């Protein structure tokens, strides 16, 4: 049993990369459907696949919530399994709670008309966005970059919108530290946050991040998501289709 657990632990990061690699092309465009389960080699009934989906969170359905593409039933079933199998722990971190809430919101959107909507249940804490140092805030937000989808986490997006300059500083700091995943996540939030400084040169910065860190599929995913967000207009939280439901 310990050997099995050790094997699963060691495989998880690679399976996360595998699933992220399947999502990125679906964000770039193409025909209507995307098929994550049909693309990856790890079978959907492998517990490591379920865990990987939980780690990626709402981003497994980003082609639906950001680009309007239709997920397969197999993808939705696996996603739903991950939501049920890995609930946030009582007394756990706000990151875990937000990540799970984002997944529930993305699932609801995917099963309906695709418009991202706020999740059900209690809203996790957002006070930390205002209270943390800009360095720590950026690091934490980067872990929740999958929620940088208009309408998916309105309270969190609203909190982020109060500190665009600090987030921009955090983006630059992450680039200087060569923390490409943090930089990509921060950049994705900036792509949908009003008040992002023009002087930052976000588009060029994200191109640089992709050039340096794009071998990491999660970096590529965030950069591509940011490109989708920028192409939708003005960096404000504009719903993809129709109005955002409360």
């Amino acid at each position, binding site marked *: 049993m310990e050997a099995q657990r050790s094997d699963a632990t060691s495989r998880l990061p690679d399976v996360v990369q595998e699933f992220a690699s399947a999502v990125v092309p679906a964000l770039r465009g193409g025909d209507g459907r995307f098929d994550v389960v049909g693309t990856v080699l790890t079978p959907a009934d492998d517990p490591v696949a379920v865990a990987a989906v939980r780690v990626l969170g709402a981003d497994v359905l980003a082609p639906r919530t950001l680009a309007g593409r239709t997920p397969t039933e197999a993808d939705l079933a696996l996603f739903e399994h991950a939501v049920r199998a890995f609930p946030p722990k009582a007394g756990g971190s706000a990151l875990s709670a937000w990540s799970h809430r984002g997944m529930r919101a993305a699932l609801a959107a995917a099963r309906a008309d695709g418009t991202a909507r706020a999740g059900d249940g209690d809203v996790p804490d957002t006070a930390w966005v205002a209270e943390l140092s800009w360095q720590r805030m950026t690091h934490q937000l980067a872990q929740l970059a999958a929620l940088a989808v208009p309408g998916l986490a309105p309270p969190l997006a609203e909190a982020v919108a109060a500190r665009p300059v600090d987030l921009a500083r955090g983006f630059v700091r992450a680039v200087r530290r060569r*923390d490409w995943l943090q930089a990509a996540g921060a950049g994705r939030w900036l792509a949908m946050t009003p008040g992002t400084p023009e002087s930052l040169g976000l588009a060029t910065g994200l191109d640089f991040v992709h050039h340096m860190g794009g071998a990491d599929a999660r970096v590529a995913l965030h950069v591509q998501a940011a490109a989708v967000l920028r192409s939708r207009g003005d960096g404000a939280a504009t719903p993809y289709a129709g109005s955002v439901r409360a």
Partner: protein
Amino acid sequence: MSVETTLPLATETMADDVEALLNPTEADGTFRDSAECAVLLLAGGKVLLAPPTPRPKG
């Protein structure tokens, strides 16, 4: 005689692994700004260019 289980590892045993990936700590790193780099370069250059310690005679 123990029987090795062939059942798939339950997802609940991976909860800690998932939480660890959802809540990573920021990697430590040293970062020097340009001014500090310039000072280090000048100080290092002075050391390299300094004359060697005289050898004792005899």
